[in-house]
């Protein structure tokens, strides 16, 4: 038999039918919906259709979840209406829902894995581009739009054209305080924000193998920022150990047969990818973005590009981006003063992220205000058991409930116009954190370093003093 990639194995296992032009109808094992899915539910209602597989559909309150209070009478604007709409749609169709006051509530891409809804070998869809996160388990997971969400609700299937495959191999070993976030920003800055467009990415190599599940989720989460609709990592012992015993994970005999199948998933020796990229992990430094696209990133020790060094088209774009960001070309990025910090999101709102940030913050004071929103209420409780909440609060940061929060600001957690925010999120787009907001993406440890110094700072010396 010919050697096959992880992607090919997952894909072929889910194809219901394939048309002459290559369009394939895939079975969907898990469908996750959130408040933003209101357009799709409206489409379904417009046709009077039921949800085909309520047992495979999970609803989550996250994008609009208020983080400073859980009392909807205290919040205004769209928030109560959007949450109530989701709750009503879930009730109408008999869907399981992780509502605002559920102790398991959190960001969809955090609680899917946490609850064992996400498993190796599955297809997972959600009307959210960061669905690529779930690929960390060796699942075929990708974001879809509202029309496609309506389609999955109505049929539990999705039409897709098979993407090409790309393997990103990260060799060597990561240096101290260098994390999955830095690896991701590094490859995106090299390949471009559309560098993986049309590809399914598989991450491989010793650096990827050595990552925790949290780190793998961060890496796969950011696949979309490099243009890849999906990113994945072959399941291994770390994956199985994470999944075992989770509430919705298989039990007993089911677990044994699942394990038997999961062991067959990794790409075969000699499997051929359409594109191979190799990155030397040992050379990656803590990385920050300077512009308004995730590809506009550089090592914290680096210098903002000088416009004359760039090709004409890049220079025009860079001038605009720097103007928006209020930065000078040709200057070191370190030392740029920030106005505030944010730690959270589906990229870096997991327990390990909070631990890394707390390691930097412990015993230190933040020079600027900041918000820490854990990825889920379960992460929140675990952090409190470990005393991390005290570290954040004693440093002067605000410790709040779980949700998308300042990643997208739909719940009102916004960055004011012109303010500069060091953020553990995934998008530094214009206006992403609020109109006129200036976002610098970085790892949670780097955000913590920015908090305690009030400026973009290399976190490494701050940690070295501690060891």
């Amino acid at each position: 038999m010919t050697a096959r990639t992880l992607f090919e194995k997952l894909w072929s296992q889910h194809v219901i039918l394939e048309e002459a032009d290559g369009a394939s109808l895939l079975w969907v094992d898990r469908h996750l919906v959130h408040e933003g899915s209101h357009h799709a539910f409206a489409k379904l209602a417009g046709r009077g259709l039921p949800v085909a597989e309520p047992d495979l559909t999970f609803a989550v309150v996250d994008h609009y979840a208020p983080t400073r209070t859980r009392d909807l009478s205290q919040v205004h604007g769209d928030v109560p209406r959007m949450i109530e709409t989701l709750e009503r749609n879930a009730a109408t169709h008999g869907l399981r829902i992780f509502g605002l006051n559920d102790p398991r509530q959190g960001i969809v891409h955090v609680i899917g894995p946490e609850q064992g809804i996400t498993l190796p070998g599955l297809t997972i869809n959600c009307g959210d581009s960061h669905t690529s996160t779930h690929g960390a388990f060796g699942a075929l997971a990708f974001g879809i739009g509202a029309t496609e969400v309506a389609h999955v609700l109505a049929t539990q299937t999705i039409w897709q054209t098979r993407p090409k495959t790309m393997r990103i191999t990260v060799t060597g070993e990561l240096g101290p305080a260098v994390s999955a976030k830095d690896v991701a920003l590094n490859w995106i800055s090299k390949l471009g924000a559309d560098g993986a467009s049309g590809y399914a990415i598989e991450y491989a190599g010793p650096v990827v193998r050595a990552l925790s599940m949290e780190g793998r989720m961060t890496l796969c989460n950011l696949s979309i920022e490099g243009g890849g609709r999906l990113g994945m990592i072959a399941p291994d012992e770390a994956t199985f150990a994470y999944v075992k015993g989770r509430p919705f994970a298989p039990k007993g005999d089911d677990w044994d047969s699942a394990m038997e199948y999961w062991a067959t998933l990794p790409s075969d020796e000699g499997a051929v990818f359409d594109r191979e990229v190799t990155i030397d992990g040992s050379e990656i430094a803590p990385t920050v973005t300077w512009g308004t696209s995730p590809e506009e990133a550089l090592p914290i020790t680096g210098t903002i590009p000088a416009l004359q060094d760039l090709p004409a088209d890049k220079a025009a774009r860079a001038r605009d981006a720097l103007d928006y960001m209020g930065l000078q070309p040709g200057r070191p990025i370190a030392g740029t003063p920030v106005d505030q910090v944010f730690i959270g999101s589906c990229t870096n709102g997991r327990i390990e992220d909070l631990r890394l940030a707390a390691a930097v913050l412990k015993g230190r004071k933040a020079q600027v205000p900041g918000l820490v929103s854990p990825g889920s209420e379960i992460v929140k409780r675990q952090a409190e058991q470990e005393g991390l909440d005290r570290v954040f609060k004693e440093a002067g940061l605000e410790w709040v409930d779980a949700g998308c929060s300042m990643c997208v600001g739909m719940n009102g957690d916004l960055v004011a116009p012109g303010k500069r925010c060091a953020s553990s999120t995934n998008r530094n787009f214009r206006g992403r954190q609020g109109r006129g907001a200036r976002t610098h993406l970085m790892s949670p440890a780097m955000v913590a370093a920015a908090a305690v110094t009030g400026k973009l700072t290399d976190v490494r010396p701050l940690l070295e003093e501690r060891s």
Partner: protein
Amino acid sequence: MAGWTEHTGQAVALPLESIDTDQLIPARFMSTPRSEGYGRFLLHDMRRDKDGTAIADMPLNRHPEASILVARRNFGSGSSREAAVYALVDFGFRAVIAPSFGDIFASNAVNNGLLPLKLDPQVVEEILVGLGGDCATATINLETCTLCIGDDRHGFDLPDKWRQKLMNGWDDIDLTRDRQQEILAFRAARRAEFGWAWPS
């Protein structure tokens, strides 16, 4: 949704890279029901200043009649929000021409009758130069996969399924429901072999 085979309209240049979906429609507008119309939200923060006044020299404000948008690479990257497509469609756009598109954006576009028309970067640059700050009449034909603009004629590639959907205004749900037997058979076989894949 009605399909279309040929469209003639005004093409306008917005010569920027990476016009992401957060710019196409800022998140704060996304709770609006579609029936209220999304055209006014399109590129809101680029079209209006902080007091809400229209910025006079913004290309879309100068040419509100435009129905074909020409932009640089990585158009529609970012969030999967289909609202970005609703904003373009409700404003009156039928096609966006760019060297590359966000993957999810392109699928969303086709599902709403909007053509993501991909051309080589240098061809897009030529078109942008030709347009300058003005509009020009352009014709797009889906049957022949050609774009005519000024005196130039460009062929483009489009997956057959996308072409069919745009031309017929097809809705996937109807198409897929015709395949119900195959879906049910697949489901039964999967359940028998991969019972663990159903949540416990």
